[in-house]
């Protein structure tokens, strides 16, 4: 070992030292986005806009919350509004002109109901109400066996709505529309359009945890944290590009305790009871209304059949959380998710040829 020669390690160490100095100098603390949070659409709405510091946040809040409140009233199943009025007219059985705010939802829901063999069925408003989920703060008592039997004897379907142009007729006396499983998707999309009218090109609209992006924050992707449905903290992070919607349906979102049992808001039309077997279902898609409805459908489909229904709905990227904390996801979802904690994960794809629906 010649003592006077500088060792290559010393040179490497010097380079590392210089790099850490550069990293220190590069620390930039300027907020690149603005956030605002307000209450609308019966939930908390959180808007992220890029770039920070240039938009009129007060105006954005007032215009957006006004528009969201209008949508909330028109699509509320049990309050006087467009949907409330539609429900009354549907029950009467006569022909009437559909309110323009409700018609696109009815058309879309009919399509989704036939794709999912009735697992996604917004015509079952009476069943939802029987469980107490028509109230803002859901409460029991849940329906007893007799009531459930009556509700499920001849359940209304979306196909019981006869549609000719804008004229509608209800052919089932118990038909009550409840768009809880897809209205938020429409609302988020319309909020982004409104933001674009206000000059915001890059934004995330997050309504009660379900969100959609438009544009990009500079040259990077949007970074979304996915909260752990079974406990605190972050389960995973997902990077989103422009016009991507991320919707989750979970048993923890709305519900109440009844005689020691947890009653949640995702009701399975087959049993008439809260769905079982999945804690949460998450869908990533460019159509927010589809993502919203698909998340609900996968929750109802349960641990065995969710990949099948994802495939039927044209959903490639989905993820479900099981009660034991493990996670199942579609092959297309795998590269999009970066887990933030140790988690058991299985990749599930719809098996070709399996078309039967569980009884």
């Amino acid at each position, binding site marked *: 070992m010649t003592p006077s020669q500088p060792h290559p390690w010393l040179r490497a160490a010097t380079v590392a*030292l210089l790099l*850490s100095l550069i990293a220190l100098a590069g620390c930039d603390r300027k907020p690149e986005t603005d956030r605002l949070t307000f209450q609308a659409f019966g939930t908390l709405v959180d808007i992220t806009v890029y770039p920070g510091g240039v938009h009129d946040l007060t105006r954005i809040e007032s215009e957006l919350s006004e528009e969201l409140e209008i949508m909330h009233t028109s699509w509320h199943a049990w309050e006087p509004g467009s949907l409330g009025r539609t429900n009354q007219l549907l029950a009467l059985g006569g022909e009437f002109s559909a309110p323009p705010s409700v018609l696109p939802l009815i058309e879309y829901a009919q399509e989704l109901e036939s794709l999912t063999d009735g697992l996604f069925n917004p015509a079952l408003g009476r069943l939802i109400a029987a469980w107490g989920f028509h109230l803002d703060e859901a409460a029991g008592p849940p329906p007893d066996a007799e009531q459930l039997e009556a509700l499920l004897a001849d359940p209304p379907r979306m196909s019981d709505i006869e549609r000719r142009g804008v004229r509608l007729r209800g052919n089932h006396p118990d038909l009550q529309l409840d768009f809880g499983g897809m209205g938020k998707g429409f609302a988020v999309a319309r909020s982004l359009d409104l933001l674009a009218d206000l000059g915001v090109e890059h934004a995330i609209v997050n309504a009660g945890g379900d969100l959609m992006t438009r544009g990009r924050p500079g040259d990077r992707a949007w970074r979304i944290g996915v909260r752990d449905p079974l406990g605190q903290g972050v389960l995973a992070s997902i990077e989103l590009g422009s016009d991507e919607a991320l919707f989750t349906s979970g048993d923890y979102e709305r519900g109440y305790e009844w005689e020691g049992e947890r009653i949640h808001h995702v009701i399975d039309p087959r049993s008439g009871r809260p769905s079982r077997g999945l804690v949460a279902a998450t869908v990533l898609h460019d159509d927010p209304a589809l993502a919203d409805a698909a998340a609900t459908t996968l929750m109802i489909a349960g641990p065995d059949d969710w990949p099948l229904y994802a495939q039927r709905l044209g959903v490639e990227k989905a993820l479900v959380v099981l009660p034991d904390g493990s996670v199942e996801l579609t092959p297309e979802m795998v590269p999009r998710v970066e887990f933030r904690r140790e988690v058991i994960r299985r990749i599930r794809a719809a098996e070709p040829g399996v078309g039967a629906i569980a009884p």
Partner: protein
Amino acid sequence: MNTDPVLADRRIAALAALAIGLQVIEAAIPSPVPGIKPGLANVITLVTLVTLGWRAALAVTLLRVVGASLLLGTLLSPGFWLSLTGALAALAVLAPLLRLHPRHLSALGLAVPAAIAHTLGQFLLAWAVIIPHPQLPLLLPPLLLAGLITGVVTGILTASVLADPRIQRHVRDPSTTQSG
């Protein structure tokens, strides 16, 4: 190796005087960043360690810390305790490393860990006792970086002092004679 106790005491006294002088001069020069100083007195500690062993280095360090604080009027103040803790932490790390000198480590290889230990010791005392503030750890990375840089500087200075033939004669190497 010198065994004359009087001569040893004189050497320690002379080195301690040098160290006190350096520390007082350094205290008079305002630092661009508060809390960060070059620590030139550590050159004397290292030279003492290498020439006279760790007992002498401990003596020089204690004399320097107490002596300088007497001159600066900071005896028993928080600054005094920080200075003492840093110096003792550095010595605690140097004592085992001394065996590797000069065969595997030069003065630079002694000065860098000493400076890091100095910084860490002071920081832990400050955090645990003087100002227990939860945000204080955010100060540690820049302080450690400063420690690394001052360690390299004092190491180079110490190496050049030790390279002087008048000092070189006294460098202790238990296994071999000087490798010059």
